[in-house]
């Protein structure tokens, strides 16, 4: 009996780790493109909140989850264009631009939510993505419920990991992204449109972050809550650096953080005698430790956070 309870607990923990890793992994994948092109987008948090709201709003008004996702992607891209304009066109300081974007997204998402739905006792709800039990595979003992009993967004995200890695390593576009982040002048002199590539990468980052936000509101929960992203945008940035700009390593890192979140929730639920504030802080403490350990060794793209202008030398 004892072992049964343990197995059930372990299955729930591992499945939870996977689920909780998605809203970190999605924005991290996009941010890999953004950072590889030389831009640090610290506005992920704000973009994700806007994406969460758009995903919820889109679903609520159309009663179609896919339209919700579409709304989140469009909102994410639109919002990221602010970052693109500030950092690429105006050549503003990227840390400041990103921070501003996060503040804007936090405030704007709350404001718009109240505008649209008013202040109600019970938050409006939608029917969120339901788990998709993959036939046969989900019947495998232990592995089945851990790996093959998730909603469609989880599977799509895992597919996106493979796609991102492929695009970055095996396509001309990926080559251009890496070149622009390492040596924009060289890329320019080889006829690559540095501005365009960087804008595209920021937009990819925005689309993925929008999806990540939407996962929270329509894939994990079924409503929008103020500040529901809760720092995952920043954790995603840490994951990108920890993963040294590689999608597969980002998957591993996101699972680590997802695991920390899932563990923390379950510890609270069991009622371990630790103040829940400490448990809540677990993923964030982990972030700091991880950054301390790797940031010295990580080889950042050589043109990281540096704006490019052809006539300057």
């Amino acid at each position, binding site marked *: 009996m004892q072992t049964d309870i343990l197995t059930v607990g372990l299955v729930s923990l591992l499945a939870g780790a996977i689920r909780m890793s998605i809203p970190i992994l999605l924005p991290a994948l996009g941010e890999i493109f953004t950072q590889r092109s030389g831009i640090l987008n610290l506005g992920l948090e704000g973009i994700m909140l806007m994406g969460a709201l758009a995903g919820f709003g889109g679903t609520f008004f159309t009663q179609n989850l896919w339209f919700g996702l579409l709304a989140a992607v469009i909102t994410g891209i639109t919002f990221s264009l602010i970052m693109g304009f500030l950092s690429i066109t105006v050549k503003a300081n990227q840390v400041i631009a990103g921070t501003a974007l996060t503040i804007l997204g936090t405030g704007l998402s709350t404001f718009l939510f109240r505008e649209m739905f008013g202040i109600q006792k019970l938050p409006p709800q939608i029917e969120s993505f339901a788990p998709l039990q993959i036939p046969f595979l989900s019947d495998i003992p232990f592995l089945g419920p851990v790996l093959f009993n998730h909603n469609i967004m989880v599977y799509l995200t895992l597919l996106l990991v493979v796609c991102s890695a492929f695009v970055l390593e*095996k*396509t*001309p*576009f990926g*080559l*251009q992204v*890496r*070149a622009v982040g*390492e*040596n924009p*002048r*060289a*890329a*320019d*002199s*080889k*006829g*690559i449109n540095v501005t365009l590539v960087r804008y595209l990468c920021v937009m990819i980052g925005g689309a993925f972050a929008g999806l990540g936000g939407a996962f929270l509101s329509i894939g994990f929960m079924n409503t929008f809550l103020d500040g529901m992203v809760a720092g995952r945008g920043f954790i995603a940035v840490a994951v990108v650096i920890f993963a040294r700009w590689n999608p597969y390593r980002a998957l591993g890192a996101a699972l680590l953080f997802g695991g920390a979140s899932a563990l923390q929730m379950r510890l609270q639920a069991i009622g371990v005698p630790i103040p829940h504030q400490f448990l809540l802080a677990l993923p964030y403490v982990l972030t700091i430790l991880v950054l301390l350990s790797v940031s010295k060794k990580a*080889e950042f793209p*050589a043109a990281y956070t540096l704006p490019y202008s*052809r*006539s*300057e*030398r």
Partner: protein
Amino acid sequence: MDLAVEMREITKVFKKVAANDKVNFNLKKGSIHGLLGENGAGKTTLMNCLYGLYQPESGKIFINGKNVRIDSPQKAMSLGVGMVHQHFMLVRPMTVVENIMLGLSSKRGPFLDTDRVERELLALSKRFNLNLEPKAKIWQLSVGEQQRVEILSALYRGAEILILDEPTAVLTPNEAQELFGILRMMRNDGKSVILISHKLEEILAIVDEVTVLRDGRLVGQAQVTAETTKRDLTSMMVGRDVLFNFKHETLKTGATKLMVNHLGARNDKGLPALKEVSFSISAGEILGFAGVDGNGQKELCEVLTGLRPTTSGEICLNGKELNRSSPKTFINEGIAHIPEDRHKTGLAMNMGIARNLILKNFSQSGFSSRGLLNFRAIKKNAERLMEEYAIKANGVHTKVKDLSGGNQQKVILARELSSKPEIIIANQPTRGLDIGATEYVRQKLLEESAKGAGVLLISADLEEILQLSDRIAVLYDGQIMGILGRNASVEEIGLLMAGVRTEEVEVC
């Protein structure tokens, strides 16, 4: 003969200063054309206009007789113009083939076509004797090989007109000869080459025609024949005769200034870069260090200026031990450093000239008091040094990154030599300088040594070493292969540079 390129009345203005002022330039098809001029004359600017990196304010460009507007490098390449820049335009963590595929459309649609490009590169590399391995990463290649990657890249894109901006400044004499072989092969193939260089022997050896710029204006264009001499070219460039042979006084050296014993150090990768290096420099002596780049020169300079820790041995200046001292101690003890890489270690590129000139002594001699800078003194100092060292710029606060390569080097020289040094560590001090400036630097080094400073001179230019040095040490694989007298022959030095130790080497 047809013209491959005709540039008419090109004017390019930076911050109200004309870098090119109504310049005409004609390149004949199937010829090698030298572009000459002092530092800051506007050579690079003119070529950047041809390559689409800069847009001229006015003027017309004709390629193969057709009037064209070149608004991007992409456009230039589609017109058959390729360029190898003064600073290489390569992405270091990528492979050769990846660098060359950059910006090209792939024949396999959305996927990279690495295998096919690799095969084509191998064939092309063989045809022009470039000797490159497509799978190698750029950072693993020597400077000469990196340059060949750039040439290969231009050829692969179908360049008919190749611009080379000071290609030999970073090459060893052997590599330069190889390069010229490649260029001749290209000329036989009907391609046209524009060659920017400050080395007149090279120009005379390989070029069919020259165009000379001075202060952004065209001075003239001339055929180069067997009768043309260096003197002809220099008087066109500088407007006066330049000394080519210095009279180096026979040495009357004083007491030993710098003593280095059994020195060892590691390179950036943690491997031994200096092994048991011992030598001494006396007052008034110039000790030349010959050797192929990358045999410990950089590490030696850094150790002797306190920038790199030693793993063994000792450094004594005027009898005082300096091991494990901070760079500041080395500066205060009077060790001046002219580093090899002026962008990374020599200058603060985003600061003005005046401030760069006081980087080392801002806390002394009236430049600051009670923690505040004395701007008047700083400006005065800058004005004096800019005049003395003929630094060409808009004003004392011009950002160093806006200066031409030669003028940047002069800023470093002015700062280092004006501090009345005991020992001068000069690593490639004339690289990229025009002949006037080169003459000037060499004379300065001789002057300082005559005043009693000891000089450690590292140069890839054997002629420079032979001309200036009292003794010549040869570095190979982090060791001193031998120290020769000033009458050593080029052959002798060459053997040691290749790591061949001959028995009868006299060690003095």
